[in-house]
Structures are given as C-alpha cells and as structure tokens.
C-alpha cells in the first residue's frame, strides 16, 4: 500500500478542491461581484445572474446539515468509496457563505440529524488505474 500513499493527489474536481498533503482539504467557491451570489467551484460566470465579474474565494470548513439521506446500495458507475460497499450518509451542508454543498458524510449513519454542526474532512480516493484523488466529506463535530 505504500505506493498508494505516495501517489500524486489529483483534485477530484478541478477548481473545487485544493490542499497541501494528504491530511488537508479546502473547498473553493466563486462569489459574484454583481449579485453577491456564491456558488461552489471555480466558475467563469455567475450561475445566477450571468455576470463574469467573479471573485474566487475559499469556502468555510464548517457547516450545518440542512438535509441528508443514507445511501444503502452501491451507487452506479465508478464509485471509489469503500470496497466492499458500506452504507453511508449523504447530505446538503449549509456553509456560512450562503451555499449548500452536497457531500458524503463520515461516521455512523444512524447518528445524523438535520441541524448537526459539521466539519470538513479530507477523503482520499483510489481508482483502479492507480490514480489518487483529493476528495472531501463532512463529519459531525465532536461535542
């Protein structure tokens, strides 16, 4: 497994995820200077008003669970989560910037409740072709 940990980490989505080292992750967003709307990722135009006056911002690493579900079957396609499959929480996490981002939830699936305070966590995904990706999850903040 050592070759795996040394693999270069690619952002799971260019312009959305960045970080230094395998224990770090930051989410990037776009703030429209015209209508002030914030969207996730690095976008050339505002998804609300279409303006190209965009400022790149870092998004909060903490948020609140707005809604969630538990995925009980392996998702279709090239899912890179645990193998064998384990049911996992999936939620919309509201960030202070005024955007709700969809993200897998780390931890016991029965424990989640709407309104939970969450913390962003790095999540490294390994593909069958040897590539490794820097992805992200949210976990409940320890009280």
């Amino acid at each position: 497994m050592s070759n795996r940990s040394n693999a270069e980490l690619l952002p799971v989505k260019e312009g959305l995820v960045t970080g230094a080292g395998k224990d770090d992750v930051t989410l990037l967003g776009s703030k429209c200077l015209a209508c002030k709307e914030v969207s996730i990722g690095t976008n050339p135009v505002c998804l609300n008003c279409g303006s190209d006056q965009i400022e790149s911002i870092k998004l909060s690493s903490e948020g609140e669970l707005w809604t969630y579900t538990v995925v009980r079957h392996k998702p279709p396609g090239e899912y890179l989560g645990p193998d064998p499959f384990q049911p996992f929480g999936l939620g919309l996490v509201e960030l202070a910037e005024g955007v709700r981002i969809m993200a897998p939830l780390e931890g016991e699936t029965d424990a989640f409740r709407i309104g939970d305070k969450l913390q962003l966590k790095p999540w490294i995904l390994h593909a069958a072709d040897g590539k490794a990706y820097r992805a992200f999850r949210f976990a409940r903040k320890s009280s």
Partner: protein
Amino acid sequence: MADSDIVILGTGIHPFGRFDKTPEEIGAYAAKQALEDAGVAWSDIQTAYLSRMYLPATSGARILRRLGGTDIPIVDIEAACASGGAALRQAVIAIRSGEVDTALVLGVEKMPRGFMDPSMIYSPWQVKMGMSMNPAYWSMRAMRHMHEFGTTDEQIARVAYKNHKNSVHNPNAMYRKEFSMEDILNSRLVCDPIRLLEVCAANDGAAALVVTTAKRAKELGGRPVTIAACVHTIARYSADFRCPADSMSATIANVGPTALTAQKAYEQAGMAPADISCFEVQDTDAFCEIEIYEELGLCAPGEGGPFVEGGHADIDGRSPVNMSGGLISKGEPVGASHVAQVVELVSQVRGDSGARQVAGAKAAMGHVLGAGGNCAVTILKV
C-alpha cells in the same frame, strides 16, 4: 370547441414492462393504434416527433419505416423525464403555425434494468464520490419536508399504497399488485426514508398521439379532446434540488419548476386547480407526489401529507392523482412517460377508463419532472 383549438384525435399505447421487442416494434404498435383510434390514414400525417432519452440516433426515422413508405419529417426530442411534453409542444407549435394540420407524437423507450447510467447526467467527480444516485436526491428532499412540516413515513407510504391499488385496473402497467401499508413500510430502504415499494423502475414502453386541429377533427369525426395547455420549462436558478445538482443556494429560493410550469399552464388554459378533474403526475418516488400536490395547488404548502392521508388523491377523492397507478406501478420508460400520461387522461375525459374512471371527468392534467430541472405540464379538456 373552437375551430382554432388543437386537439388529440387518437391515442395508442404499448404496455409498459420489459419485453423482448425492439423500439421499432413497440413504437409502430402504439402509432398504429393511435391512427386507428383517430380514424386517419398514415398518409394523412404530415409531421412527426419522437420523445426518447435512451434510444440511439435516427430512432424516429427507423420507427416510421415500420408504418410504410413516407417522406415526412420526424425529429427525435430529449428533455429527460419531460421529453414527452417537449415533443407534444412541438406538434402544437407546428399545427398552430399553419404549416401542417395533423401530426403524430411518439414516445418510445427501452431501458436497461436497475439504476440509470450515471454518466448520462452526472460529472465524473459526483460518480467517484457516490453522489450519482437519483433516489438520494428524492430522499434528501423528503427528509427536509419531514423536518419542516412533520410529514410522516406513513403518509409517504400512503401514496404508494394508492398508486399500487389503482394499478390493478390498468392493463398497461408493469406491476399490477396491491400492497398493504405494512408491506410498503416493511419493504427495504433504498435511501432513507424512501423504500423499495415507493420508487419507480426503468423499463420499456411506447405511446402515441394523433394531434390535429378542431376543424379537421370535425371533418373526420371521432372523439377529439382539446389541448388546453402544453408547457415545458427548465427550473430557474436554485429553484429545485434535483439530479444532477451538486449544490443549492441558501440565499435565493426561486419558485420550483412544478409550480412555475403549472402556473403557466393554468394561465394558458384559463383554469384553476379546482377546474381539473384528475391528474397524472411524476411519482418517481412516493414522496415526490406529496410535494407535487402542494406545487400544483391541490393543497397548501406543507399539507401534502395530510392531503393524501385524507384520501383526497384517491380515485373518488377531491383531486384524484395517478389513476393509472403512476410511475411507481407502470415503471418509467422516460421518453414514453408523459405521452402515456396523456393517453390515460384522454381516456379519462372520454369516460373510457372503466374501473379507474374518475366520475364526470371533464378536464385533466399531466405533469412530468426530471433531470436538469426539465418540467412539462399538459392540460386536456372536453
């Protein structure tokens, strides 16, 4: 009926299910039935549209070859689950333009079993992270609705109970079995809180409509049904959390696509929710139907749970919904779905629906909603 009205003169349907038949076979089957019902010859059709999502290029042309030699145009149309509404709308526009007076609208689909191929709509990173399951989106909406309005598992199951019960009387449905509330609530969870007996399945099916002017219908005779409205929209910015969205705004909440499309359709038809006798709507999952009651204006926001629990959406209720059994029982061959809803609704307003007939149905609405925020609403009347 005014001479300028656009009408459906004939309908056809191939049962929904899984068949060892080609799209050409089931498409031509539905088309022939529609021509026969309309009492028009194949040579009377001047233009055609095919609603489909999963079929390959030139599928429309291939289906038409099965009906006999022709040189009329056919365009294959895709708007996810709303494809049928988009195709019917094109026929209405073509006839209204005066270029043609009679058109054929086909909805045909053949889909693999199980979850839909995620690469059709999702980005690779969503697939890698496990966010490419359509039911997960429906479930997250359900969880939020339960949190905000106190909607219960039993109320969600009541939708599935009603639709499975109605399906027993629909020979074109894939599943025609009644289930008890207990059966439904004990079926396994797909994505919490949505259970197996509360979701629809992808399958095969075909439906067809002959569309013409009221003037032409009078010449031909038959039993025309007026298209009072046919509207297709895509959801406004952050109006809807539906696949393949990866986020939504916490500051802007635009009117949802169902409410928006219905509002335009009510306006086009000059009708209000109380004027509509019955509805066929997008119950991809049982919860979805609860939200649709609210957005179509059948009840107040947040009241969808008590509405179904009170029997108001039953065939003998105030606003019957999914008399056909809905997508939960019929399955959802995406391209055929809305066209088949219209087939059902034509049958309802003609009074031909037998054991699933809504007494005295005079006006009916079909609604579909899916990926990309695509939504379509058609209103029919006699």
